[in-house]
């Protein structure tokens, strides 16, 4: 079989596979609900700067402080009299961005490392896996403190901190996936054709272990949002007055005894977002791997 026909047939297969995945996904009610929620959230997050007056988000009015949810302020107001509803809505920008960028960071670092470890095995694998062990032993909060303090506290650095702490997950998942396909015939064939290792990894191996990685990605977006908000909760967040959800929770923590709504709504927002990602992730897994379909 020549390389041309192989790649052509693969392309063809790939296209139909995408269609098939969508076909399966469409039938999954949970995944479609999740997808719907996410689409709305993304639409809001991407366009909010055009239709929402920032004054509503950051404008303070101390005389209106700590009002319980009412018809004017749906989610109540915080200790500076800012409307919690708009702050939570505006916060979606940060949380979604953090989720995505953080996971991109861990994908970019984790997948190649995992692939190399799985493909070469032996000492290389040993080394990479030990380094992974070392990194996973470091509490993410320490990672957060260090990154945020070296590079300053900014949204991107928070993303970086969260991203780096979930690199070990991707290394392990990718390695495991690579192990399952590296001895397949098509890999042997490519090797016999004298292709370089790099070519084989990126053209043959990785495309065939995408599904666990994609599934892990959606699930990790969810947990990245949660861990970013935990870091934020422990005081390593985004610069004020940006209403990141974790930061809102931290601020509300002080008032939890009498004004628990200050914590309730940002927490619910995190929960719903993460839930949506998880539902889509579950759906994707089922759709991509019919064998696993439950």
């Amino acid at each position, binding site marked *: 079989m020549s390389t041309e026909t192989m790649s052509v047939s693969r392309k063809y297969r790939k296209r139909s596979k995408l269609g098939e995945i969508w076909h399966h996904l469409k039938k999954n009610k949970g995944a479609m609900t999740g997808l719907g929620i996410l689409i709305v959230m993304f639409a809001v997050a991407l366009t909010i700067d055009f239709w929402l007056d920032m004054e509503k988000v950051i404008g303070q009015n101390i005389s209106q402080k700590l009002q319980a949810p009412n018809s004017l302020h749906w989610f109540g107001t915080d200790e500076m009299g800012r409307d919690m509803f708009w702050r939570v809505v505006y916060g979606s920008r940060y949380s979604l961005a953090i989720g995505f960028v953080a996971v991109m960071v861990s994908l970019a670092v984790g997948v190649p490392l995992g692939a190399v470890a799985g493909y070469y095995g032996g000492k290389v694998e040993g080394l990479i896996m*030990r380094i992974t062990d070392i990194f996973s*032993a470091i509490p993410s909060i*320490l990672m957060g403190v260090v990154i945020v303090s070296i590079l300053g506290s900014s949204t991107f650095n928070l993303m970086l901190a969260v991203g780096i702490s979930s690199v070990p997950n991707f290394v392990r998942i990718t390695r495991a996936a690579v192990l399952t396909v590296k001895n397949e015939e098509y890999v042997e064939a490519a090797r016999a054709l004298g292709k370089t290792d790099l070519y084989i990894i990126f053209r043959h191996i990785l495309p065939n272990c995408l599904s666990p990685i994609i599934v892990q990605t959606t699930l990790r977006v969810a947990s990245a949002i949660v861990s970013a908000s935990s870091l934020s909760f422990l005081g390593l967040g985004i610069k004020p007055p940006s209403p990141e959800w974790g930061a809102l929770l931290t601020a509300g923590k002080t008032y939890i005894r009498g004004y628990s709504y200050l914590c*309730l709504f940002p927490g619910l927002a995190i929960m719903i977002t993460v839930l949506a990602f998880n539902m889509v992730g579950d759906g994707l897994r089922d759709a991509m791997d019919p064998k696993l379909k439950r």
Partner: protein
Amino acid sequence: MHKYIIKRILMLIPVTIGVSLLVFVMLDLAPGTVVDIIGGEMTTEEIAELNHELGYDRSVFYRYFIYMKGLLHGDLGTSYIYKVDVWKLYMQRLPATLQLAGASVFLAIVLSIPLGIKAATKHGGVTDNLSMVAALLGLSMPNFWLGMMLIVLFSNQLGWLPSYGATDGFKSLILPAFTIGTGLMATLTRTTRSSMLDVLRADYLRTARSKGVPEKKVVKKHALKNALIPIITIIGTQLGNAVGGAVVTENVFAWPGVGRLIIDAINQRDTNTVTGCIIMTTVMICIIQVVVDVVYAFVDPRLRAQYASAKTRKKPEKVQGGAAA
């Protein structure tokens, strides 16, 4: 088997060296040292003296070298802040962390495995759907937020349970254990269900059924045993996570565990304490992993044979990542 355990323990050595080096370098990169914390009102000379005493006038590698020299003699160092042996500090906090870890895992096992089995056997039924929705919810809730909401409900509003610390015995354990346990319960229910489903469809069970073995027995005798491997893996991983100290949850509940100790030490730049505790956590996780592997061998004779021949072993992979820290 012995060979394998020894190999596992030997592997701790490079990991420990790497972890401690990383902690040292990272804390060195963070702004401020412990001298800034304790030397607030000191004169410049005294600060210089203290810096010298603690090695902060030399490079981080020098301090690391000194620490490792101590570690070789089994000395985890002395806390700069509390002036107590880190080993002692760690041991003071470990029981609370183990209690919490144990309680949350116990809670998860007791609730999730039966639920997962039921969901799998009644696949597509009401229990199945409900438990899956609940599990998904459980996975999606930020731990600390759940903790706070539980405090508001059960401590503030209803006044049933204490909200802080470990002073009230069993009662004070409930809320934090449930908070940490939620993620685990969710993961475990899902894992149990999916691995049971895998097994229930397997050919040998079909054979057993066709031979007229009653369904209950099929589930109990054959299916569960074979579905245990991924379940044990998840429990092991989660127990490993939990002995590291559930940092945020311990913070919310003022739980006197290892996680809070590490956080406080990081904030105070108490390098020895941070390093010592993380090394101990690494060791604990390794012990748990070894135990899990031994349990595998008991559950699955095939694996036992594999260990016996001491071949390179393929550990059953995690079914999916656990809940976030």
